[in-house]
């Protein structure tokens, strides 16, 4: 019992014992094999799952919250846009109404002008016609008068003077009618 290995001569402690080396390596490989192949992957998976269950839940909740916020924002934006659109359409309609009114006013003005212009043209045409007619009339009357003067000769100066008077009277009559006509046209203008 009392024999010490030391007494047989202590070995250099820095020279590794081969058997111990082998046993040490074997033990480590068994530890490493079981831990590395099975046990640690197990726990890694579980830790990942737990992380997912805890922080993943939070992340999902945050994501849902963000989604809801974004949807709300979108709705608000759409609503604002719709309001804006409505206002724009109203404004447009108002503008269009104003334009239509202006156009109609202009059209009315134009038609009035056209009617007035047509009236003037009619009056002018009438006047010309009257003038032409009058001139023909005057010519005919003058011819009549001349015929009458020639026909009756100069037998009776009194008669002659009467004829001239009648002519002048008739002339006056036609002049009066023409003057009245002309004054009317002037007022219309």
């Amino acid at each position, binding site marked *: 019992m009392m024999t010490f290995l030391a007494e047989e001569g202590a070995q250099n402690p820095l020279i590794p014992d081969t058997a*111990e080396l082998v*046993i040490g390596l074997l033990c480590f490989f068994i*530890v490493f094999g079981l831990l590395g192949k099975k046990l640690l992957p197990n726990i890694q998976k579980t830790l990942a799952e737990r992380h997912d269950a805890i922080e993943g839940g939070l992340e999902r909740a945050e994501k849902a919250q963000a989604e809801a916020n974004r949807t709300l924002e979108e709705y608000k934006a759409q609503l604002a846009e719709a309001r804006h659109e409505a206002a724009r359409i109203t404004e447009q309609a108002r503008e269009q109404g104003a334009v239509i009114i202006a156009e109609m006013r202009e059209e009315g003005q134009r038609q009035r002008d056209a009617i007035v212009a047509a009236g003037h043209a009619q009056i002018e045409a009438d006047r010309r016609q009257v003038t032409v007619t009058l001139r023909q009339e005057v010519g005919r009357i003058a011819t009549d008068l001349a015929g009458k003067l020639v026909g009756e000769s100069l037998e009776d100066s009194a008669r002659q003077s009467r004829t001239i008077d009648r002519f002048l009277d008739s002339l006056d009559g036609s002049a009066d009618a023409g003057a009245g006509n002309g004054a009317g046209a002037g007022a219309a203008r």
Partner: protein
Amino acid sequence: MSAHTLLAEAGCHIKQDCGFPAPGLHSFDFKPIFSIGSFDFTKPMLLAIICMLLVVGFFWAAFNKPKLVPGKLQLVGEIGYTFVARSIAREVIGKKGDKYVPFLTSIFFFVWFMNIMSIIPFAQFPPASRFAFPVALAALVYITYMYLTFKTHGFRGGVKNLVWISGLPKPLVPLIVLLEFIQNCITRPFTLAVRLWANMFAGHMLIVMFSVATWYLLTPTWLTAVSGGSFGLAIFMTAFEVLIQFLQAYIFTLLASIYIQGAIEEGH
């Protein structure tokens, strides 16, 4: 059973004409529990296997059927796992470190459990104080380091990554190349193994020292007071070792991840 236990059983006390049975290298050599031919199965091997079973058993119980709402055991396992995944892999390597988390987690817990054996009653021995165990793990880290270096950068880029620092003045280049080569290819794996080994070795030595001294001085004389002091120190050292055990497992894993990071980073 370790050598010092045998010493204690011998019941040697001061002034009994049997010198102080000081702990030494022999405290780390064990008689084989059984032998198969030239193969001796010793206590450190048994402890390493027990630690392997404990690590696997613990994580099996914690993570075999993981639940979304964890039970107590699963929660403890998750804390351990996230400690390595976040505080070591993510912190040092970044996002790319995720695929090395199983490797780093295995290292951390295997080393830590082995270290804890130092203060577990009846075990009371850290397997990592036998140089072979740190060497085995450091060798794996070293192989991983080399493999990732050449896989990431190709042969030329890998060699360059190991020995080259850009932007050096010309005369310094040969010296730095030599130093970088020595550092990356020789001292790194060596110090990685030695750091863990030496810490566990020294820690165990201190605890044994004060324990043996406590027993040795325990006599019906005034020396009992010294024995009490020694006992107090043994307890203090045990508590201190709890910290060291965790720290060394952490440092070993941290350095492993730093090497991996150095291997896969883009140029340097």
